[in-house]
């Protein structure tokens, strides 16, 4: 007897749940389309700020950056993507100081793990979300992040740039 009631209750709950499923898909049919029609909607495209597309070294209006050329990011990079060249100079006060001469980063070898940004003690580098990185030759992927003639921002003038800038 119970098996018969089971049969029928199973049948009707089955039908009800199928109807429930169909009502869900019916609503889905009228939802807004999520497709991004990429090349056309370039102007309105929203890419999350957290997206890691390209490593940059922010420079301020005086063409100064925050990199002390300590080499920590290079040490922490699991892929050897970062290559820092630095030189020793003598300041006016006669102190020896290491300054950055070339900060080179290879997009083609980066896994976008963000370790370099996290470990940098001066917050000198960050990832931005400009994702259109395709180039025709591999050599173009190797980028120099410090700008021509840029120099280290003086500590006294300004405190460290806030995190995430």
């Amino acid at each position: 007897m119970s098996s018969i009631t089971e049969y029928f209750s199973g049948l009707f709950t089955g039908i009800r749940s199928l109807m429930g499923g169909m009502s869900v898909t019916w609503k889905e049919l009228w939802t807004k389309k999520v497709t991004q029609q990429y090349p056309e909607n370039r102007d309105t495209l929203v890419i999350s700020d957290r997206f890691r597309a390209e490593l940059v070294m922010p420079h301020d209006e005086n063409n100064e950056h925050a990199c002390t050329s300590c080499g920590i990011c290079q040490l922490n990079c699991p892929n050897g993507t970062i290559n820092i060249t630095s030189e020793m100079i003598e300041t006016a006060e006669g102190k020896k100081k290491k300054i950055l001469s070339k900060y080179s980063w290879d997009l083609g070898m980066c896994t976008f793990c963000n370790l370099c940004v996290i470990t940098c003690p001066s917050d000198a580098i960050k990832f931005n979300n400009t994702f259109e990185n395709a180039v025709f030759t591999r050599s173009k992927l190797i980028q120099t992040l410090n700008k021509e003639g840029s120099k280290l921002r003086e500590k006294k003038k300004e405190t460290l740039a806030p995190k995430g800038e």
Partner: protein
Amino acid sequence: MLLNYSHPLEISNLTTWLDTTLRSSMPEFWVLFIEFALVIVALLTAYAVIALILIYAERKITAFFQARYGPNRVGKWGLLQSLADMIKILLKEIVKITRSDRFLFFAAPFFMIVASMATFGAIPFGKGLLAVDFNIGVLYVTAVSSVGIIGVLLAGWSSNNKYSMIGAMRSGAQFVSYELSAGFALMTIVVLAGTMQFSELIEGQRYCWNIFNGHISSIIAFVIYLISGHAETNRGPFDLPEAESELTAGYHTEYSGLQFGFYYLAEYLNMFIIASIATTVFLGGFLPIQVQGWDAFNGIMDFIPSYVWFFAKTAVLIFLSLWVRWSFPRLRIDQLLNLEWKYLLPINLVNIVVMVILVLTGLTLKDLFGII
């Protein structure tokens, strides 16, 4: 003829005119010969065109269900997409499979396409647009459409590939099971209508479609027919013969180019055929919506050409099938067979008896309300 003026958009006007002009200038034999040739050409063209439209519609509707746009690059709204796909598939190489059964391998797609084409030919598309009107039309359609399964089994067997083989075996089990239900559901309506001939079936539904005429029983039969028809086409939740995650593509894994195109085409056309048979048998075929006594309303409805009614009704059913397809997860083989043998078939058998009682005791809507 009055008909000519009251239905200016009907294609039957054209066919009648063609027939009379041919007959006035030629002997009987040549008239028939030319007409047969024209019918064949028209059907083949319709077959291909409908398949293209269906492929486009399916891709669009599927996309909408998934909150996408679907094809929208080739032509306006992607309208030429399926045409482009067709050209691509025609140009593709047909790969010869070594160590397959060459003859059966090449024959298999033809079984599939011939079965679906032979069924397609028997569908009444509109007033006077019925190529063959057998007095056992329903039986013919059921019989001929089952030939397709031979194509599937042969494809699986001759490919010499375990995926194909398993896919074909599953498809065979599924098809044989659900063919039973589909047949019984149609028989329920044959009991109600008292005829197997499509033209009479349709004519009997002028003021009261079969689905309303037999109320409870008809609706159950309709639902069962849609479910089993859907299962026969190997689509939607019943697509385990080609479950790509386990069987790559099932029975047509080894096929390429045009041969694959045949299976693809037949699959889409089977969807159309199931929907159009359901339309014809349950939803009044190409007849417009008519209410007995409301002559003005009937006149207006009648002005819309019959083929428009037919395709509109069929389109609704096809949409239903797509809706089901994108709502439910795929069944396991045991669930699939359970559904058929433990639910659909017993319900169906009881349903036929109920229908017989309804008809014999005069409880159909036509009897109750005196509709002709």
